[in-house]
C-alpha cells in the first residue's frame, strides 16, 4: 500500500471489509443534519399536540353537556335548556349573508378570470382590494356595518349581522372562485370560441359547470368561516331576547357564537357547561363542513381528470 493511500484512510491501513462509516467533516455534517431533523420533528409533534389538546379540551367538556334536548330546546332561565334558537339564528344570519356574498363573490371571480386581462390595471386594483378586505379584522367589519345600517335604522338586527358576515365571506369566495376558474382548461374556452359561442354563454354553460365542484367547496368553506364569527355579531346583532326563537331578520337574532360569548359572564357553573356544549356543537358543525368541502373538492378534481 502506497503512502498516498494510507493518507487517504487517515493513517489506518486499508481494509476493504470494514463497514463504510462517515468520518471527519462528513460525520459532523450528518450529525448537524440529524439534529435539525430531530428538532423539526419534535417541534412539529409538540405543535400538533398543542392543537390536538385544544380540540380534545373542547370535545371532552362539550360532550358532557350534549344531548338531543340540548340541541332541540330553547334556553330557559339563566343556565337551563339548550341552544335551539341560537342554532336557528346562526343559520338565518349565515344563510342571509351567503345569499349576498356568494353571487357577488363568484361574479368577482368571473370578472377577474374571464373578462379582465390578467395584467390589466382594474384587475390588479380589484385583487388588491380583495386582499385588503380579506385582511380586515372582523371587528372592523362590525364597526362598518354598525355605521352603515345599525345607526340609520336605530336598531341592531340579524339583517345587519348578515351583511357583516357577507363582507367577511366575500373576499374568501372571490378568491376561491378565481383560483378554481383559473384551473378550467383554456382549451374549453377556445373550443367554445371556435364554435362562435358568445362569452356569457360560454361562462354559463361551459366554464361554471366545469368549475362547479371547486366553487361549491369555496362556498362551504366561506360559510363555515362566517358561522363561527363573533366580533361582527357582537357589534351589529347582540341585543336580542336570549330565550326565544326569532325568525324576523329585522329584529335582533340570537346566534351560537354570541351565546358562548355571553355565557362566560354568568357566574354559574351550569352556564359554563352550557357554553362548552354550544362551543362543541359549533366546532363540530364547522369541522364537518370543512371535511365535506375537502371531499367535494377531491371528487371534482377526480372528475376533471387531474
Amino acid at each position, binding site marked *: 500500500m502506497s503512502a498516498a493511500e494510507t493518507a487517504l484512510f487517515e493513517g489506518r491501513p486499508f481494509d476493504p471489509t470494514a463497514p463504510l462509516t462517515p468520518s471527519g467533516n462528513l460525520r459532523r455534517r450528518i450529525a448537524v443534519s440529524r439534529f435539525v431533523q430531530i428538532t423539526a420533528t419534535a417541534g412539529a409533534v409538540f405543535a*400538533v399536540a398543542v392543537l390536538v389538546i385544544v380540540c380534545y379540551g373542547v370535545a371532552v367538556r362539550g360532550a358532557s353537556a350534549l344531548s338531543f334536548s340540548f340541541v332541540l330546546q330553547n334556553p330557559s332561565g339563566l343556565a337551563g335548556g339548550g341552544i335551539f334558537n341560537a342554532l336557528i339564528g346562526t343559520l338565518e344570519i349565515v344563510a342571509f349573508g351567503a345569499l349576498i356574498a356568494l353571487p357577488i363573490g363568484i361574479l368577482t371571480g368571473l370578472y377577474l378570470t374571464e373578462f379582465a386581462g390578467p395584467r390589466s390595471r382594474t384587475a390588479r386594483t380589484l385583487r388588491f382590494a380583495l386582499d385588503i378586505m380579506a385582511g380586515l379584522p372582523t371587528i372592523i367589519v362590525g364597526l362598518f356595518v354598525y355605521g352603515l345600517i345599525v345607526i340609520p335604522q336605530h336598531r341592531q338586527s340579524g339583517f345587519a349581522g348578515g351583511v357583516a358576515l357577507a363582507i367577511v365571506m366575500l373576499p374568501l369566495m372571490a378568491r376561491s372562485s378565481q383560483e378554481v376558474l383559473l384551473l378550467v382548461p383554456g382549451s374549453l374556452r377556445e373550443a367554445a370560441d371556435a364554435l362562435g359561442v358568445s362569452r356569457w354563454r360560454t361562462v354559463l354553460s361551459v366554464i361554471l359547470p366545469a368549475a362547479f365542484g371547486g366553487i361549491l367547496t369555496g362556498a362551504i368553506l366561506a360559510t363555515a368561516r362566517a358561522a363561527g364569527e363573533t366580533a361582527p355579531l357582537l357589534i351589529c346583532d347582540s341585543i336580542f331576547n336570549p330565550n326565544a326563537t326569532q325568525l324576523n331578520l329585522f329584529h335582533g337574532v340570537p346566534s351560537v357564537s354570541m351565546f358562548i360569548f355571553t355565557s362566560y359572564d354568568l357566574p354559574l357553573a351550569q352556564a359554563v357547561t352550557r357554553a362548552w356544549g354550544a362551543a362543541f356543537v359549533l366546532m363540530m358543525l364547522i369541522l364537518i363542513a370543512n371535511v365535506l368541502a375537502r371531499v367535494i373538492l377531491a371528487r371534482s378534481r377526480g372528475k376533471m381528470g387531474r
Partner: protein
Amino acid sequence: MFGLCALAGLLVVLTLVDLVYQLLRNGQPAISKFGLGFITSTEWKPNFSIEGVGAMLYGTVVSSLMAVVLATPLGIAIGLYLSMMAPARVRAVVGPLVELLAAVPSIIYGFWGLVVLVPFVDKLEPGLHSALGVIPLFGPASPIGIGVFTAGLVLTVMILPIISALTRDLFLTVPTELKDGAAALGATPWEVIRGIVLPTTVSGVSAAVVLGLGRALGEAIAVSFVIGDVTAIHKSLFEPGSTIPAEIANQFTSPVNSLHTAAMFYAGLVLVVIGMLTSVAARMIAGRFDVTQRVI
C-alpha cells in the same frame, strides 16, 4: 354578463371606500378632539372624556409580536416536517388536521384559553420569572394567569395552523430536481433545506408570517377573554393589558357617552391603517416571491 361581473367588482372596491368613510364619519368627534395625539396618548378614561389609544396599541403590537416569534419557528418546523420528512401516512392525517385547526372559530380559542390555558399559565409564570426574571419582560407572576403573555399564547395557537399550512404548501413548490440535485452532490438533508428550500421560499415564508401577524393584530374576541382589559403599559408580559380590537369588543356594547363610541371608531381606524400596512407588506414580499419563482 360582463356588466354584472364588473358591477360586482366595483361593489367590492366601493365597500372598502365606504368602510373607511364610515370609520372617519363616526369617529369624527374623537378625531377633531384628540387629533393625532390620540395615537401616542396612553390615557384611556372614557368617564372623563380622555381617550388615547397608545396603551392598547402597545398591547396589540406586543401580544402579536410574541405570537409571531413563537409561531414562526414552530410553524416552519411543521411545514418542513410535513413537506419533506413525514412518512406519507402521517402526512395524509396531520396535513388536513392542521388545515382544519385553522378553521376553528376564535370564540372557541378564547373560551378554551380562559378555562384551560389561564390556570396552566398561572402555574407556569413563577417558573418563567425565576428562570428569565433578568429580562424585564418576565416580571413577577400575576395572581390569576390573565395577561398579555396569555393573550400571546392564545394568538400563537391561533396563527400556528395558518403559518404551517402556508409554509408547507410553499416548501412543496420547490422543484424536486433542485432538491435531488443538491442531494446528488452530497448535501445532507439539512443542507438541502438550508441551501435550496429556504432560500427559494424565503419571501413566501415571510409573507406567510406577515399574514399570521395581520391575523393576530386584528383578533378581538379570543384576546378579550384572556388579556385582562387594563389600558396601561407594563414592562412585564405577565401584567394584564389590552389590545385595540379587544377593547372595542369589551366596551362597544356599553359606551359611557357618544365621544366614547367615536373614540372606538377612531381606534378602529388606527387598526385598519395598521392592518392595511401589513396587507400591503405581505403583498409586496409575496410579489417578489412570484418573480423568483418565475426565474426558476
